[in-house]
């Protein structure tokens, strides 16, 4: 199967406008004859559902949470990028495009990224009109802050809760359409499969998480806005419920999964305190502006610290290794996320990690406090220090913070073309769920931008083209494909419920997380990945024999919900490992130890690997087939990153 990304020809800046003109339109009177299914109500889902309903389509929206407002977009802290150039500092659509392509280590499509930068300005207008209270200057105009990976101030923010405010804006637009009756909202409903009729997506199968009912929903198109799969690592900054199931089910029904190995690991998270830990909390990256990262020079000192025989303050200056400053004299503590993360991991692997578990390094503010005074430090980072104190019960004014990297975002996802359509006609993927715009690494404040761009400003145009082409004939729910798919779902649930082994689903998930983190995390090797593949296969086989799932299917059953999600992670994990094995280069969030520069930086191999790796499912326990979509760079020149 050939992968046609359908990028319009012509100059970069004209691609999207020309494409919009060429897309077919649906007659306004006909729009109400189409049903569109939107799964997930985060930034991408809520904005898409609202915008499509405004156009006149009948939308059915689904979320597994108790309210669409709970989607994990709500937790995004930093901000949202837009090429408004309000600061007069030289920003432009082209610059945002360029920063994003470069930040993604040249593994994203030029056409998509340019469009993203282009519509970014509309997003801010839209959100302000909805009543999103962005931060403002005293003159009443919008404020901006700067963010990693760019030299201009283009990030709009609402204190540390930008994601929340943007999501509540989209949620309000969605609510308006629910009230009008144009969106039918299904909460506490989990999508468990997609129904394809003659190769086209025509509906989904859901489980009502309250009654356990398995329902069939028909639609002329299905939009998956179901977020990323970071929870394959068990511990991540994702919400507990975040899962890959919708995307993975679609994958098993034919949709290609692209670049699954691209995962972003954030360097400054609060470390794990023990096996009981259920999730990781992010601390803003800005802390590295004043904090100095260090680990003890010797394993012995680290050991004493771990056993609490000595405190960090008692470690003499000459016994400390400020490893980022030592290895990267010019960037020091401000090296990019992936570099900082990888180095912290090296310290821990070396036996020099600190904290009770040994999985942490220090982020020390003692110098900053001496230099600037405690008050100045508090003014800058007070809320973060409080948050840290709250979680760890350690006062960061008195002793160094402990930090450790954590999985934060997944750049890979369902393969989509320029129209956000997967290779299955009628099946679309938006937001973090797709793979398209961030390449191998996502820049800060770009996730919110992409989710909203897809939902507000891309899908309302591109979906119409497809719907116009298939016509408004109602979807025939009596087609055997619906009954068959529903039966598959029921069978799978029954198989899961029949598992009465000795190991809880949570334990399997944790084991999988350990494997993924160890071998497919911040640094990957041929040997480790090969080992991981075997371990995952064995774990998955064991799961289907020895897992323990309690309760019944026709009631609220958290154990069953969890089991279905973990079963899918157990399959995805192997594909991630396959993808990482295939990609014998380092790029962005994917670091192969075999492929690094002399300074230890990610070394790309553009001659061989400048492509999107899209995987096709070939059946249970069968190797997946790789399809390559070549990335052509017409407008930017590919360079190697260096932080010397």
């Amino acid at each position, binding site marked *: 199967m050939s992968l046609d990304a359908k990028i319009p020809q012509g100059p970069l800046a004209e691609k999207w406008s020309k494409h919009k003109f060429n897309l077919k339109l649906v007659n306004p009177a006909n729009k109400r004859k189409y049903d569109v299914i939107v799964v997930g109500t985060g930034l991408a889902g809520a904005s898409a559902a609202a915008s499509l309903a405004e156009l006149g389509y009948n939308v059915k929206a689904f979320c597994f949470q108790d309210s669409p407002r709970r989607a994990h977009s709500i937790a995004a802290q930093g901000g949202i990028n837009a090429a408004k150039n309000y600061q007069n500092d030289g920003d432009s659509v082209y610059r945002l495009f360029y920063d994003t392509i470069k930040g993604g280590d040249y593994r994203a499509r030029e056409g998509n990224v340019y469009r993203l930068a282009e519509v970014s300005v509309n997003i801010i207008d839209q959100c302000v009109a*909805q009543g999103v209270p962005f931060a403002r200057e005293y003159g009443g105009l919008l404020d901006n802050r700067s963010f990693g990976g760019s030299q201009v101030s283009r990030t709009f923010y609402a204190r540390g809760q930008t994601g929340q405010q943007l999501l509540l804006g989209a949620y309000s637009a969605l609510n308006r359409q629910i009230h009008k009756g*144009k969106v039918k909202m299904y*909460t506490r409903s989990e999508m468990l499969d997609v129904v394809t009729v003659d190769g086209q997506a025509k509906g989904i199968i859901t489980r009502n998480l309250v009654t356990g009912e398995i329902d069939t929903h028909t639609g002329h198109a299905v939009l998956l806005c179901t977020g990323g799969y970071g929870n394959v690592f068990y511990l991540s900054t994702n919400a507990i419920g975040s899962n890959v199931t919708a995307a993975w089910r679609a994958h098993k029904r034919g949709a290609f999964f692209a670049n699954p190995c691209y995962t972003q690991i954030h360097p400054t998270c609060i470390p794990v305190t023990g096996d009981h830990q259920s999730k990781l909390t992010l601390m803003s990256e800005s802390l590295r502006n004043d904090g100095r990262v260090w680990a003890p020079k010797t394993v012995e000192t680290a050991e004493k610290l771990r056993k609490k025989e000595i405190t960090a303050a008692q470690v003499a200056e000459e016994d400390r290794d400020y490893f980022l400053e030592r290895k990267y004299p010019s960037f020091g503590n401000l090296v990019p996320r992936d570099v900082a993360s990888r180095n912290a991991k090296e310290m821990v692997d070396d036996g020099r990690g600190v904290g009770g578990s040994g999985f942490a390094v220090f982020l020390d503010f003692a110098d900053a406090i001496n230099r600037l005074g405690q008050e100045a430090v508090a003014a800058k980072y007070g809320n973060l220090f409080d948050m840290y104190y709250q979680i760890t019960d350690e006062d960061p004014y008195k002793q160094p913070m402990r930090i450790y990297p954590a999985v934060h975002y997944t750049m890979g996802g369902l393969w989509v073309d320029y129209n956000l359509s997967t290779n299955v006609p009628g099946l679309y993927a938006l937001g973090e769920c797709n793979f398209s715009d961030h390449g191998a690494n996502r820049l800060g404040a770009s996730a919110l931008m992409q989710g909203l761009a897809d939902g507000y400003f891309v899908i309302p145009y591109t979906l119409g083209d497809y719907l116009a082409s298939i016509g408004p004939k109602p979807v025939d729910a009596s087609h055997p494909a619906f009954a068959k798919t529903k039966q598959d779902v029921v069978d799978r649930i029954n198989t899961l419920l029949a598992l009465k082994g000795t190991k809880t689903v949570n334990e399997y998930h944790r084991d999988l997380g350990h494997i993924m983190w160890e071998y497919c995390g911040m640094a990957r090797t041929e040997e480790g990945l090969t080992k991981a593949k075997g371990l995952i296969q064995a774990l998955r086989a064991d799961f289907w024999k020895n897992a323990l799932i309690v309760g019944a299917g026709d009631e609220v059953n958290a154990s069953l919900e969890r089991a279905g999600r973990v079963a899918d992670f157990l399959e995805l994990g192997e594909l991630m490992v396959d993808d990482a094995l295939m990609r014998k280069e380092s790029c962005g969030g994917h670091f192969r130890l075999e492929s690094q520069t002399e300074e230890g930086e990610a070394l790309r191999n553009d001659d061989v690997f400048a492509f999107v790796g899209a995987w096709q499912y070939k059946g249970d326990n069968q190797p997946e087939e790789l399809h390559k979509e070549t990335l052509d760079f017409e407008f930017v020149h590919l360079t190697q990153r260096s932080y010397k």
Partner: protein
Amino acid sequence: MNLTLKVWRQKDANSTGKMVTYKAENISPDMSFLEMLDVVNESLTLKGDEPIYFDHDCREGICGMCSLYINGRPHGPKRAITTCQLHMRSFHDGETITIEPWRAASFPVIKDLTVDRSAFDRIQQAGGYVSVNTGGVPDANIIPIPKVIADEAFNSATCIGCGACVAACKNASAMLFVSAKVSQLGMLPQGQPERWSRVQSMVAQMDEEGFGSCTNTGACEAECPKEITLTNISRMNNDFFSAKLFREEKVHDHSGGGE
């Protein structure tokens, strides 16, 4: 730490529930409250018993999904945090902890500690928005908004919709929740065109859902994990009376009008 838990167990909305006592053993003070429950649930599962069902998702205090009425207080004993941000070091070894669901007629129990808060969504659907379609909006900087107004609107907008205000209120009133949205949009210039209809619509829906009325005790404000203030309620009252007594606008009815 070893603890005794008294937990409300209820099979479903139609069953009657009861308090059941559990032992939580070898609990680390570093655990979050929900992680402590995870541990209890793992041991229940291994015994083949049904785990305790409770709502939770982000576990960083922003999604608003977690709830729990712990020892007589929503989100537990500490101020300005959600249950998922509460750590076991806030309790002492050997303590008995009583855990109940939010109690309100408008929040029926779904199972165990989980309640149905869709009433909140319906209130928002009644009018908690600015009626603008995607596209065709003016430039974001066309209307300057005084910083103090933008900041105050933000304070109101930080509501996470967890329902702690209802749980804490002796009248199970939703006034703090409703007023936060009414205030946010009522303060911003973008919210002005619908200011007088919005407040009527949202209050009408709030009443329809069966929440109690506000007696200004301030318990909601004290328990709100996002520290939303009573001032919001006062602003809403003012807008409501103004709308009802002196304005042309009625409860807006958007249903069915869209194309």
